């Protein structure tokens, strides 16, 4: 199971960030060709991302490319660079409905054929940034077998909802978070929480991480490298959780050796979901 706690945004036009992002060891790096890149630099950023994707440093880390919307003059060119460059995942911004995912999938398949990649190799994820996207989240999340994640993007969503961030318990985001998370779980894919824009406010960042983690998000989109370690630490299991996970796996192993289907631990049944959760706890512990 791929661990996806941190997806670090790297502006495609920023040579310094592009040359060093891998050092911070996020679970995924997202090269951005959309909002972080000025219109006049879209062509150059596209080439930078295409070349960075082929750099040895980015062969050992999951790479994502956020393309411009496909109905813009940049979107299809971005897609050719991302798929042709070997990106693991294409992130579609401002996704409103499942048809956009179907269209994306068909275009990606054509590019894969043309550039010699195996059809189906490129995975997809969608960012939900509007009320329509939230309402259609389940259809979007289940639109393709290539979908591996869905993300909620707060800024555009809150503008669409005629409100803004409260920087507290964030009731304004609760419905969208819950809807995107349920869509992800129904589709058996990962869910990413919003970015936290104030990079000097670690306390606020960690407060928001606690909300996302508590709801069940797999991770967050991040806009600064310093947030990677903070996030990984916050997502790290406690010693008690690790000890319990080890006991669960030991009990499951013992039951397997005895040919038993299920076993109980501390009076609770150890079944496949419990084993899967224990494995995830240990995976997070090893990666923190």
């Amino acid at each position, binding site marked *: 199971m791929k661990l996806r706690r941190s997806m670090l945004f790297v502006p495609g036009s920023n*040579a*310094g960030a*592009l*040359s*060093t992002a891998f050092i911070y060891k996020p679970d995924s790096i997202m090269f951005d060709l959309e909002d972080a890149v000025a219109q006049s630099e879209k*062509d*150059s950023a*596209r*080439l*930078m991302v*295409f*070349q*960075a994707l*082929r*750099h040895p440093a980015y062969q050992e880390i999951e790479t994502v490319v956020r393309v411009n919307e496909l109905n813009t003059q940049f979107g299809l*060119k971005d897609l*050719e*660079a991302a798929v*042709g*460059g070997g990106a693991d995942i294409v992130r579609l911004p401002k996704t409103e409905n499942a048809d956009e995912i179907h269209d994306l999938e068909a275009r990606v398949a054509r590019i894969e054929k043309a*550039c010699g990649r195996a059809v189906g190799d490129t995975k997809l994820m969608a960012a939900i940034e509007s009320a329509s996207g939230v309402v259609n989240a389940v259809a979007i999340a289940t639109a393709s077998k290539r979908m591996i994640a869905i993300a909620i993007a707060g800024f555009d969503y809150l503008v669409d909802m005629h409100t803004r961030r409260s920087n507290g318990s964030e009731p304004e985001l609760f419905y969208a978070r819950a809807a995107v998370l349920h869509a992800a779980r129904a589709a058996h894919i990962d869910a990413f929480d919003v970015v936290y824009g104030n990079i000097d406010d670690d306390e606020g960042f960690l407060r928001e991480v606690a909300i996302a983690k508590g709801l069940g998000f797999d991770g967050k989109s991040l806009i600064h490298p310093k947030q990677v370690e903070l996030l990984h630490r916050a997502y790290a299991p406690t010693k008690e959780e690790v000890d319990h996970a080890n006991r669960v796996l030991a009990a499951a192993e013992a039951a397997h050796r005895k040919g038993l289907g299920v076993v109980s631990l501390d009076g609770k049944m150890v079944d496949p979901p419990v084993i899967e959760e224990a494995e995830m706890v240990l995976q997070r512990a090893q990666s923190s």
Partner: protein
Amino acid sequence: MKVMKEAIAGTLESSDLLVKVAPSDKGAREIVIQSEVIKQFGKQIKRVVAETLDKLSVSEGSIVIEDKGALDCVIRARVQAAVLRGAGSEETDWGTLS
């Protein structure tokens, strides 16, 4: 590919480079490279620039590079961007850029 007009790509920020291309009537490729790391990586930078221009079939024109310690992948991208801009090319053949 022929450089038809002056064009620039990149920046003078650390880890980046600025590439200026211009048409030339000398029938040859003139490459000038300035770099903070020319002693350590000069040969490599020249090789990457030459290979990138070869793949784009740029046989003539002026190419002036001011490097600020860019990785090879950044050098390739910025040279490609400057040439494509200078050639006025709207379409990208990704096969020639890899």
